[in-house]
């Protein structure tokens, strides 16, 4: 084989690899591109090719009260479910990684349980459960923000445990021992050393939790009040009447917000290291 042939075969291999990556990412990006593109279509029905382009659907979406209220509700629910889920999930992760109890692997497996039950059924189960709680102790969770938050917390806990555990396992235990050796009580070891070192895992968990909760339609289906739906449900309800680019416009705004949140947090925690 000559030098040129060797270089050529290397080039071919690299070309094939690049082609696969490009293909996969085009596939993944197609929906995003389509949605953003469609939000500028100057037609009252979503169809290709567009007769022209306009910005009016953004105005239309902004004027549609359900989208705005949906955004607000979803943001509140996602915030609540993130706080609660990250708090509980982080505590559970510490317990899982640090206790060294036997059977921990079984418990880690159970984290899958919210994945193996269809989310819509989780919604029913919680709905029925909340009715029972309302009957029993008089706290009605069936159609308030708190019911949604508790339901979404079931989705945020497993993500938190997965991400924080991955982060904790990589931490050098002796750094905490060094703090204790230097005179830090267990509480101060935790606040001064353990927590700061878990920072990237916890931030990643919070981000993912927020997104997962914000996007979730199914768990909320039975738990939303008529007047105060979440954003995905508002989209679903809008689509039952008409399928115009306003939905695409609303989604584009939401994608922009989430994407910028991700980009900003990437400055503090390298997402590519935790995703």
């Amino acid at each position: 084989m000559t030098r040129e042939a060797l270089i050529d075969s290397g080039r071919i291999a690299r070309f094939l690899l690049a082609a696969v990556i490009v293909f996969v990412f085009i596939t993944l990006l197609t929906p995003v591109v389509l949605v953003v593109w469609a939000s500028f279509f100057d037609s009252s029905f979503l169809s290709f090719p567009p007769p022209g382009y306009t910005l009016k659907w953004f105005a239309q979406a902004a004027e549609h009260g359900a989208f705005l209220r949906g955004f607000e509700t979803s943001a509140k629910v996602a915030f609540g479910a993130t706080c609660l889920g990250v708090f509980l999930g982080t505590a559970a992760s510490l317990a899982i990684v640090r206790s060294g109890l036997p059977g921990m692997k079984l418990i880690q497996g159970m984290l899958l349980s919210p994945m193996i039950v269809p989310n819509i059924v989780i919604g029913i189960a919680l709905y029925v459960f909340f009715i029972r709680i309302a009957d029993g102790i008089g706290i009605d969770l069936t159609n308030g923000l708190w019911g949604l938050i508790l339901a979404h917390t079931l989705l945020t806990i497993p993500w938190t445990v997965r991400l924080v555990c991955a982060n904790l396992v990589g931490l050098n235990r002796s750094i905490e021992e060094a703090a204790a050796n230097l005179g830090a009580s267990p509480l101060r070891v935790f606040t001064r050393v353990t927590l700061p070192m878990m920072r990237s895992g916890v931030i990643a968990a919070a981000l993912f939790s927020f997104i997962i909760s914000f996007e979730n339609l199914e768990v909320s289906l039975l738990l939303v009040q008529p007047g105060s739906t979440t954003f995905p449900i508002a989209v679903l309800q809008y689509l039952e009447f008409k399928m115009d680019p306003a939905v695409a416009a609303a989604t584009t705004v939401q994608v922009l917000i989430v994407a910028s949140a991700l980009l900003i947090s990437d400055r503090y925690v390298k997402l590519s290291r935790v995703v």
Partner: protein
Amino acid sequence: MGTLSVRNLTKRYGAMAAVDNVSLDVEGSELVALLGPSGCGKTTLLRMIAGFIAASEGEIFIGGRDVTYLPPHKRDTGMVFQSYALFPHLTVFENVAFGLEMRGAPKDEIRTRVGDALKLVRLDSYGERYPRQLSGGQQQRVAIARALVIRPDVFLLDEPLSNLDAKLRQSVGLEIRSLQKMLGLTTVFVTHDQNEALALADRLVVMDQGIVRQIGSADELYLRPSCVFVASFLGQANLIRGHVQAPSLFRTNDGLAIKCDTSQFGSGSPAVLCLRPEHIEVGTDAAALDNSFAASVQAATYLGASTDLTVRTDENSTDLLVQVPNKIASSVAVKTGEKTFVGWSTQAALLIRED
């Protein structure tokens, strides 16, 4: 500086004793090395002194105070970890200041003492950096400064040199030793490297399978090992099994008769002859020594400062490892297969008990 005293300390995991009835006294300002192969219990013992592992039995006293049941943060030990264990989210200054902050020292005092500690390890201009911006040797020195700044009663080091490369290992080792001497620190140093222990410690504690095999100074352990384990772990040794045939006469299992001091053994009792390679002479001069045998050179390995020879006695074909220093003047190249003599004096032959 306090003294450290460990009494009948034991740590059991189930039926297995990681540290088995260890007693040890470290004087003020003394550097003691815990030496042994991996898994011998030396690190467990150090971590028990620091309080990270609870004792199953026995007591630990630091400066006369019983600390056996104190948690680590109340023991006033300063430990340097094998991985350095610097706080990655704090600067060098903040790392070193951590222990003083925990003790509630005033800001001014912290600034002065941290500055002094960093000067001591020649890192005074590195206070604002983060650990990841330092080389391995510099991180090591930060870890030392951080442990020393709190003026600990006992200074503990867990394999502090094992993550450094060979050239650095020697200089950092000597630096630790000189700091320890200057500040008069009562120090316990864990290592698996015999040269490190020999070069740095006042006394060595050789451990194996959780048990202390021997405690003593470098030359005590090297020249008068109490058992086969210590003899073979420290330096090289020819260890030849046999029994005492008569007063001052040892017979190897191969059948060689060797003159040596047998006063510690009864006639007929089994023993092991320990011969250090550098105490054996090779050449015609060797024929005049107390023990001497006609022999041939089987293999020679040039090692720079010395040459290792494998010499086989004509009688009974016993192989001996011999170390010959390479002197410029007497640089007589030894040829493999050459006929010669080996010999050693009665004092060079030490009888030790079977393990």
